[in-house]
């Protein structure tokens, strides 16, 4: 469409007529000092192909945050070329995406960066994830967050970015930096870099454990028993994620899997390679997301 309109616009200028319409361009041309030998009229260069305007991922590219559910487009496991990149995805019930605010310590634009409280308005099921989500309202804004285990309507949850000298006795659902929590608390919604937003421990019923705090960093054990070392200013929420009986559910029939958008796997018997079978190996080393000089490197 755009290509056609570009073409017509350019061709219209190519008609043999008085170049009075393009006087502005003629002025700029003469100002530059060069006289272009015009072939039947002046025109800017035009493309015969326009960029392919695909609005397939535009539904998730809005910058403005809204609590209204957004209609999603299903990919079916296909990538931009149209071929299947991930098998076993397709069909399933239609889902609407609710924009979740993973950055729990998100100050409202008008207010000062101080610890604040929010009220839980509603806890509801989210089709896009295993955990439940909660609509919380504080100040002048409402947002969706991942609900923790015992969150009910009407609860007041606190979010703070302050690390005090004493460890805070945290209630479930509150969010504090790792440095302010006592060792051994169950945490979820962990962020690796402070301010980035939580990327770990978000699934239903999961929780990490704060193992120890070491000069400015904290070590957390993820649900897979892997340990990570992050800065102590990273904000986490306290408690287990909601919907704890999610792993105890029984699918029951093939149809229910299809409702969830899971297509059957290939029935072809394939010889399994070295990857298959039970493996007993030691835990991987602790992953460090902090760029600090280690304690042993004492500079002289």
């Amino acid at each position, binding site marked *: 469409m755009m290509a056609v309109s570009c073409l017509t616009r350019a061709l219209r200028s190519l008609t043999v007529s008085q170049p009075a319409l393009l006087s*502005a361009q003629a002025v700029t041309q003469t100002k530059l000092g060069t006289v*272009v030998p015009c072939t039947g009229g002046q025109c800017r260069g035009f493309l015969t192909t326009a960029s392919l305007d*695909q609005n*397939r991922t535009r539904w998730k590219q809005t910058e403005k945050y809204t609590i209204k559910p957004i209609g999603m*487009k299903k990919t079916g496991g*296909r990538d931009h*070329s149209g071929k299947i990149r991930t098998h076993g995805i397709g069909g399933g019930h239609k889902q609407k995406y609710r924009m979740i605010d993973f950055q729990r310590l998100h100050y409202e634009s008008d207010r000062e960066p101080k610890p604040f409280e929010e009220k839980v308005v509603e806890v509801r099921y989210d089709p896009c994830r295993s955990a439940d989500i909660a609509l919380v*309202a504080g*100040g*002048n804004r409402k947002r969706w967050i991942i609900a923790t285990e015992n969150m009910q309507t009407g609860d007041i949850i606190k979010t703070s970015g302050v690390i005090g000298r004493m460890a805070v006795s945290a209630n479930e659902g509150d969010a504090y930096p790792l440095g302010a929590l006592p060792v051994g608390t169950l945490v979820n919604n962990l962020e690796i870099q402070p301010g980035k937003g939580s990327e770990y421990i978000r699934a239903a019923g999961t929780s990490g454990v704060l193992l120890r705090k070491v000069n400015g960093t904290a070590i957390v054990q993820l649900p897979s028993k892997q340990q990570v070392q992050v800065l102590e200013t990273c904000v986490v929420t306290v408690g287990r994620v909601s919907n704890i009986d999610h792993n105890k559910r029984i699918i029951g029939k093939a149809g229910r899997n299809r409702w969830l958008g899971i297509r059957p796997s290939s029935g072809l018997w394939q010889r399994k390679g070295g990857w298959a079978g039970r493996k007993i190996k030691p835990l991987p080393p602790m992953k460090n997301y902090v760029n600090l000089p280690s304690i042993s490197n004492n500079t002289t």
Partner: protein
Amino acid sequence: MIGKHARRHFAVSRCLTAKAPPARRPRERVEIPGFEMVTYGERMHYVPGLAKPVYPQWERDYKDPRHYKTPPAHQMPLYKEKPCYVYNQRTSALEGVRQALWLTKAKLISGLPPRLLSLAESPANQIPDQDERVQNAIKHARFWDTTEDRPCKEKYSNTLLSNLLHLCATLQSRHPAIGRRILAEKYSLATTWKRGEDLFQVRGQNGLLYNCMDPLPEVSGKQEVGDTADHVLKSFYPVSPSIDLQKVHVYKEEVNCSGFREGYPYPHAHTLYFQEEGDINCKLRPKQFRAKMVMFAFGNALARAHSLYGTQPQSVLGRPITVQAVGTNGRLFQFLVFQLNTTDLSGDNGIKNQVWLDEDVELYDYAKLRPLIKKKQVKVPAGLAGYKPETFRKFLALYLHGAV
């Protein structure tokens, strides 16, 4: 390799997938001060190695109404630094009636005031054959008004309201003061007031307005009005009272318009009639609907007070202004009486306004086309079932208030 170059898109019959090609970062345009960029603009065609020419944005030098772009908010002439929170007809307040009470600095009393209740009960103000005529009105709205099986909710609540208003108007022969009133629709209300440190406005086309030449008498005496000074408004921390209100920076200060010009023969607002299905895009839950009723009744009263006593806040009005409101969804009615005692709304202390609210009053239980049969027994018969005559008496009392 295929995906790297731009491709023309021929297939329109196949389904289009949701993933777009990976976005290519456009080449960065580097500006080095002191150097002139050599572009292919003069050559009129692309030359590899030369930069893409950048032309200045062309502005039309005459004004064309078909191609007009609104300037951004901070360039508008009415832009103000301080924001204003606007309650319009589509606002759905999170906290419902509590938020509306805090915004209007009002005290809630559940149930209608005793004077209106006595008006409702007295047999002298009844229409002849009242029950039968009201039931006929309900049946007309719910069953007879359509060629299809049943009319939709918007239609039947509209018809029911107009039928009930018509029935009430038949009493004009007995109470000639009813002739000094008129109904008005689609009028735009606007009022401004200050609450705490923020500026609030009520704006919008709200519903059916019943206008009167004479003001409504006040419902509660001076003693009760003075007692409201001790009442403490309920706060709902941590939610702020301006939540869900539209925040605007471009607004007219001190806008006060009751919807009608000076010299309109029916200046006093008597009753507002709200319907739940008025706006398709806005579905209000019961609490939010009642909050809307409170806010717009207050808006009308405040507009009247500003035009009578001026825009300066007054701690006690010499003559409190009363406005009534009725909201319905076709079966349930909400009755509201709002009395404006003060326009000094900036502080939380002092005399408060009063709100009498009678919520969820049923006019009838069921109006079914087909009977509800469970286990071969008729639980609810077809037609109108469970008619309650008290509701219409209250409706009539609100209508006759001021005329009797």
